[in-house]
């Protein structure tokens, strides 16, 4: 199908982009990689009056290390994230999750920031950034602000970004040394996750000292499985991990759709949390 008509600007700087967004008001939308937005527009499920193409704004791509924090430009493509040595060292979970996003052609265009700003709870990257306790840096007419990931995902397809704000950076505290794993469960390879579980684990002498577990598609936003995280602390064998994973669905509100019912999603969250944590902890 055919996307509806819109106006188009291609700003050359962040400031120009922000001004264009401000001028466009509610009608304006940022075009990053376009891999979520353009299919929605083709189905005429999104009708932005103005697209602000951030694709050529300099300084929004690539990675750098600031102290113990990995900074990834919002317009860095999934493909570039996957190939990046700093990401692999400091945010291995992000690389593991990114490898499961869509397919190679989509990963060449789709961007980390674009995916996060879309705030789809069925998408994989929000859960990764939540587990990594990242921060998102946005620039708007009122300046620059930093939003913690846990405050960024507000509701279904709704982020904390104001319509005139541009996401510029994703900041991830280095998780070097943590074990990580993403367990994604799909109907077919192309489908969204029925449930995904991102696990990040620190071990000391065979015992889990800290575990972070975040869930894809278990509610209107990506969620941390707080009860399971707490129960996992101190777990030293597969049996105790599996038992702790039994509380992974506590506090979640998964939807029902053609792929799965809420009960089954809750069941999967428990099973997959056990598997993800065991793999992350090297206890599998």
């Amino acid at each position: 199908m055919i996307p509806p008509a819109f106006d188009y600007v291609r700003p050359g700087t962040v400031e120009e982009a922000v001004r264009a967004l401000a001028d466009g008001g509610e009608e304006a939308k940022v075009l990053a990689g376009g891999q979520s937005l353009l299919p929605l527009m083709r189905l005429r499920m999104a009708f932005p009056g103005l697209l602000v193409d951030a694709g050529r704004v300099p300084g929004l791509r690539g990675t750098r290390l600031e102290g113990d924090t990995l900074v990834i430009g919002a317009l860095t493509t999934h493909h570039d994230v996957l190939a990046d040595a700093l990401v692999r060292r400091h945010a291995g979970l992000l690389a593991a999750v990114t490898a499961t996003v869509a397919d190679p052609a989509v990963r060449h265009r789709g961007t980390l920031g674009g995916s996060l700003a879309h705030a789809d709870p069925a998408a994989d990257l929000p859960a990764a950034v939540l587990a990594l306790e990242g921060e998102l840096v946005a620039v708007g007419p009122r300046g620059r602000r930093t939003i913690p990931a846990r405050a960024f995902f507000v509701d279904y397809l709704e982020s904390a970004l104001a319509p005139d704000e541009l996401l510029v950076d994703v900041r991830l505290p280095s998780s070097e040394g943590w074990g990580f794993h993403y367990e994604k469960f799909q109907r077919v390879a192309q489908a969204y996750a029925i449930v995904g579980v991102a696990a990040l684990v620190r071990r000391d002498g065979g015992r889990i000292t800290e575990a972070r577990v975040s869930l894809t598609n278990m509610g209107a936003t990506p969620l941390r499985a707080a009860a399971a995280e707490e129960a996992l602390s101190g777990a030293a064998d597969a049996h105790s991990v599996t038992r702790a994973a039994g509380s992974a669905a506590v506090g979640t509100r998964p939807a029902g759709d053609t792929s799965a019912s809420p009960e089954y999603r809750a069941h999967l969250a428990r099973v997959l949390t056990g598997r993800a944590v065991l793999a992350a902890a090297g206890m599998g």
Partner: protein
Amino acid sequence: MTRISVKVDGTTYEDEVEPRLLLVHYLRDRLGLTGTPVGCDTSNCGTCTVDLDGVSVKSCSVLAVQTDGCAVTTVQGLAQGGELTALQRAFHERHALQCGYCTPGMLMAARDLLKENPRPTAGEVRHALEGNLCRCTGYQNIVRAVLAAASDEEVPA
């Protein structure tokens, strides 16, 4: 309307386009490069895959205006001087196409894989093609063909 300049299969084109014009429609309807077909409206099928500045993309999910100043290679730009590429030959020799509708996209996706990973395993080939659907072949001969192209095996007719 926005003015763009795009190099497609070695020829530079300058055109005024509506911002919403999809790259695949620009190729097909404006340039007459109908070798790249459209198979879906959700970017699932991959039939429209082309090379954009050296990497595979789905041309149904790229706006023509986004390609201003870029170089695009389509399936029509692969064979030079009537000589099929090793990948095209392997698809022929391994019967990796039936109706042929997915073939342009499969070729472009496989070509992209072999650029990054010249000696893939069968599993890696299947991963690399997960965004390209085929309804005729069951994929087995496509995987065989990509592996054959990677090892440059000659297949007796």
